[in-house]
């Protein structure tokens, strides 16, 4: 079995999906000849031709909107937004149409589309190239928001997203596009949507995260273990609809929670998770829920990025804070 990084896993999943289903189309800016600015769509045009892979004009609203029209006509479009910082014109289409078409027509029309976008910081990119505004999307009823944390999950979750009968926003943590590899079978097997996953069991504290923050959480858990603290790491994977069950079960075991995300803390998705724990798991808690997030500032340009991004030290501090006797 070959080893692949997350970017290659995305590419493999796209190829697999296109091979198994002629309704799958790929479109976006520079996704064809150039294979995408990160090369996520590399080789697709060559393999499947110009009737399956489309370089679009530079216009995010119509990229999302054309996908909606195609989806309503029973195609399975996978559209790419080059960077999450440029997704906002497409959000109009997601909020007002993709997420509602099924409900608006009582199921007569539906919208089986995927909108992929690289997201998140940590790669020293220009302004607008490091944002994590997943909470805006997770807030939208009728939309799935899926974020992989490893090559295998990227492969399996993207296949699941493409096969799903409803719209999925698939956010790819570009910081870990190439940082590590996993063995990957390319067997076409999907990973389940709507399911959080416990990546490391532990009984003292639960670290909850997604995307690139999972690496930070796992490293923090290792270091905490050296101090005799057993951290459980939960990868949320599908932010919306949220698998509250898995989170509550973990809280039952540990009684302590640290939620980690890159986005600003204010009204970030961690707030929703904390609220659900307060609603349904309050009596399992032995310490206040902690959030380790980006600050409520504008995402800085690269020179100050290291101050903004949650890191292992901040996660460990928060975990220890939970565990400190009151």
């Amino acid at each position, binding site marked *: 079995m070959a080893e692949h990084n997350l970017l290659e896993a995305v590419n493999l999943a796209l190829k697999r999906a296109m091979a198994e289903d002629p309704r799958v*189309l790929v479109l976006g800016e520079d996704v064809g000849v150039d294979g995408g600015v990160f090369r996520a769509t590399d080789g697709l045009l060559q393999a499947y031709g110009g009737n399956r892979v489309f370089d679009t004009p530079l216009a995010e609203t119509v990229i999302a*909107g054309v996908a*909606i*029209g195609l989806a309503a*006509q*029973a195609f399975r479009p996978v559209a790419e937004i080059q960077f999450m910082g440029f997704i906002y014109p497409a959000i109009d*289409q997601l909020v007002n149409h993709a997420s509602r078409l099924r*409900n608006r027509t*009582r199921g007569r029309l539906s919208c089986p589309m995927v909108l992929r976008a690289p997201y998140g910081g940590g790669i020293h990119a220009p302004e607008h190239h490091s944002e994590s505004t997943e909470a805006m999307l997770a807030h939208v009823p009728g939309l799935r928001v899926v974020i992989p944390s490893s090559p295998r999950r990227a492969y399996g979750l993207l296949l699941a997203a493409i096969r799903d009968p*409803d719209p999925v926003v698939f956010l790819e943590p570009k910081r870990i596009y190439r940082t590590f590899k996993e063995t990957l079978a390319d067997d076409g097997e999907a990973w389940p949507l709507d399911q959080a996953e416990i990546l490391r069991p532990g009984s003292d504290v639960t670290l909850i995260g997604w995307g690139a923050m999972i690496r930070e959480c796992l490293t923090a858990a290792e270091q905490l273990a050296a101090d005799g603290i057993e951290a459980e790491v939960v990868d949320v994977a599908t932010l919306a609809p949220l698998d509250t069950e898995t989170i509550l079960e973990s809280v039952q075991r540990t009684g302590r929670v640290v939620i980690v995300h890159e986005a600003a803390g204010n009204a970030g998705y961690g707030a929703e998770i904390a609220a659900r724990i307060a609603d349904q798991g309050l009596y399992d808690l032995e310490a206040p829920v902690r959030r380790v997030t980006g600050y409520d500032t504008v995402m800085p340009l690269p020179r100050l990025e290291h101050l903004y991004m949650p890191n292992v030290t901040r996660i460990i501090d928060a975990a220890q804070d939970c565990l400190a006797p009151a």
Partner: protein
Amino acid sequence: MSLVAEFTVDHTAYLDAEGKQVQPLPAALDDQGVLVELLKQMLLARCFDTKAIELQRTGQLGTYASCLGQEAVGVGVGHAMRTEDVLLPAFREHALQLARGVHMTELFLYWGGDERGSDFAVPRQDFPVSITVGGHAPHAAGVALAFKLRGEPRVAVCMFGDGATSKGDVYEAMNLAGVWQLPVVFVVSNNQWAISTPRAEQSAAATLAQKAIAAGFRGEQVDGNDVIAVAHVVGEAMAHARNGKGPRLVECLTYRLGDHTTVDDAARYRSDEEVSRAWHEEPLRRLRSFLTGSGAWGQETEDDWLQRCSDEVNQAVDDYLNLPARAPETLFDCLFETLPEGLVAQQQVVMTGGADDG
């Protein structure tokens, strides 16, 4: 200096405001039977519209956007379309939706505040109305791309107003349709107003049709109160698109005779004189007068037809008002194909009446 490009925008009309023919009719529409049919459809649409406003005024319908004065656009486009084409309508295209076969009961249901009104029995692939102005234009490009990829001789027809032409999504859709030579026809119902904003404040362009030229395809104007002109020019645009020759845009010059919606008061921003002048141009009078002149229509025929319209509308109102209410749990059932587990508990709350304040 050298001239690198030059463009023209045509304007087409066949009947003037008095119903006098200003040029020979196109062959396919030089047929009294066809024209009588178009007049009947316009009368039916107006009858529906009148009833819808009446229902709203008596608390039996929600906010409603009248199509009064714009019937020729809807009926003309409807005539140009084939059953298998797909319509992506703005919210004022009742005349066209009726021509497409959408049932009046469904339209009442939709404007009465019930999503079931967009689950058309026919035509199954037509889009529901877009309340977001212009937001559906990109979908039309997507639908047209689907036709093109499958090699189907079908056309997507996207309707929007003069206001919508100022929007980026509309231009993005036209631009992409031009680049990809998609089988889509964009039709502007230029009724001179976008709520209180007059056409002149919407764009400094001499015509809205010329916006298509920037996107690389032909745009032209028709007298949108002349159903013959609309049917013919849109028909030609559709044939062009159907033959794989790419998109077209037709700007139909018409006038919104009513308020923007039932919650608007147009007297706040336009004069009675302007509206009276526009009544003189309205689409039914001229076709009626043309067909009366040739003996194909008369008072008695009209009275008979109006009676039938009124019967049909009243039957639809009865059906609409007597439709059983939706079960509470259906609030959830079309959010996703399968309701996510986490939402089942919320659905239970609604089913047991926990959230009903009505």
